[in-house]
């Protein structure tokens, strides 16, 4: 199975945070950048995290691990791997917000959902789009999409 994977190139990241902005927009109701920042900010949050320390910056989102601790630790079965895409998703209907996934993710990229729904929130690799929004809008190729695994 071929699997999409986002590579993080910290040496190219300029810390512009466009990935965050486009991530929020892509996961919003309106999909409109201006409307999102005006009306939807309490409802949706980015699932990509930008980190910064002195001259080092990079963006990181769910790694969709081969052996995923979050899937192992999930008590409901909400956190699961999709057999088609190989990516890891949260079934928001099943999640009860026990935060076992937050406890075990070594990347710290699973968050508590914002819109009062107490469910885990994480990168879904932009399932509805050809190219994840963060990658598409990264101006310096600090986030790059590749395909791994056998076809």
């Amino acid at each position, binding site marked *: 199975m071929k699997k999409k994977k986002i590579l993080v190139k910290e040496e190219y990241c300029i810390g512009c945070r466009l990935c965050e902005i486009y991530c929020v927009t892509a996961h919003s109701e309106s999909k409109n950048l201006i409307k999102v920042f005006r009306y939807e900010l309490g409802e949706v949050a980015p699932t990509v*995290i930008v980190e910064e*320390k002195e001259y080092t910056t*990079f963006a990181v989102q769910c790694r969709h691990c081969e*052996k995923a*601790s979050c899937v192992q630790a999930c008590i*409901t079965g909400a956190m699961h791997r999709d057999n088609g895409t190989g990516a890891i998703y949260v079934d928001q209907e099943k999640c009860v917000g026990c935060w076992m996934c*937050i*406890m075990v993710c*070594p*990347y710290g990229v699973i968050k508590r959902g914002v819109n009062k729904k107490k469910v885990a929130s994480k990168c879904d690799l932009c399932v509805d789009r050809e190219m994840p929004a963060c990658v598409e809008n990264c101006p310096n190729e600090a986030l790059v999409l590749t395909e791994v695994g056998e076809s």
Partner: protein
Amino acid sequence: MRYVIIGIGPAGMAAADAIREIDEKSELVMITSEEVAGYSKPLITYFLGGKVDEKRMFYRFPWCFEEKNISVMTGTEIVQVDPNEKRVISKRGEEIPYDKLLIATGGSPFVPKIEGVEKEGVFTFTQWKDSKMVASYIVENNVAKAVVLGGGLIGLKTTEALLELGLKVSVVELADRILATTFDKKASQIMTRALQSRGCEVYTDDTVVQVKGKRKVSKVLLKSGREIKTKLLIIAVGVRPNVGFLEGSGIEVNRGVIVNERMETNVENVFAAGDCAEFRDPSTGESTNIAIWPVAFAEGEVAGYNMAGRPVKYQGGVPMNSVELAGLATISVGFTNVEDNGVEILKYFKEEENVYRKLVLKDGRLIGAVFVGDIDRAGIYTGLILQKVDVSSFKNDLLREDFGLVYLPKEYRKKLMEGELKVWLE
């Protein structure tokens, strides 16, 4: 080849998946003493509180077993394992042959000797049927007030569910604080206050010595002399590995079934994993029985692979728990109660926001972490604990509000990003 797995909890299910990953064809039988297979045990308190319905109780739907060509025997209690004849025997007398056997029977609730404990209205709380029985008992008897004996995770999650149903609840804990085995003192204190603010009474250094009432519970008497009127008593003082049926089988049992890093017992072709197993770490010789979901899952997976012929070793785990109680999210990982000389503690506490973080360091390594209120990115610390990363060079950054991967040594971060770190398995 015929695989038999006793127990359909996380260890059993993970083992079945691991076996099927390698071997799609061989016969695979899963056995449970319960009437339902594939549901998630930690959800029984959510079910009682009305947060999870029947359908969402299923970690794995019954038809998923069929899809994977797994035969399931429900309502089948195994009373004997006979390694000489390679078979297990059920209470009804069925003989089930195996080539490879996994014991994943979990734990059974411990019920202390209390006068009157056999009365109606006294329940343990570890299975879905307990949750259903308690729910109907509450309705049928107009229960407005409950006593929960045991202030551990099961007891408190049950307490939360009962509060959710509008009951008044008193928690009685033998130790000097609730959550004594899983969280540190400060966290216990914060959680106690949070529970009290929701109208829950918490009695520590105390226990139930007598259950009063004719046929049904009407009140309980505590060791301290206090009497509490209640129609419902939940006993949640702990679980013990469910291994009684192995007596006489020749399988080595201490607290749990002793297993090595491949989850093999001392008897050939017999494996054990999860809450009923006790992992003996070959590097230290010490054995541990860490009864938590992620460990059960990982051990089950290791057992499954080895049963199906792929040699995999378990790296060992640490205790860890995540629980949200009275609206407060809390996580505890590793060793958080150690206070000997060689240990360094880093912490901060924001009282007005109920935010508390504590890190325990020993010999330059992180060995424990507690988070209350703010649990964001807790897993990064768990990673450092499990990977035994030397944190001395960035120790002072560990409690920064913006702490993240960027503060980790570049080498470790690189390994992480490239997905080269192996958690649990080797």
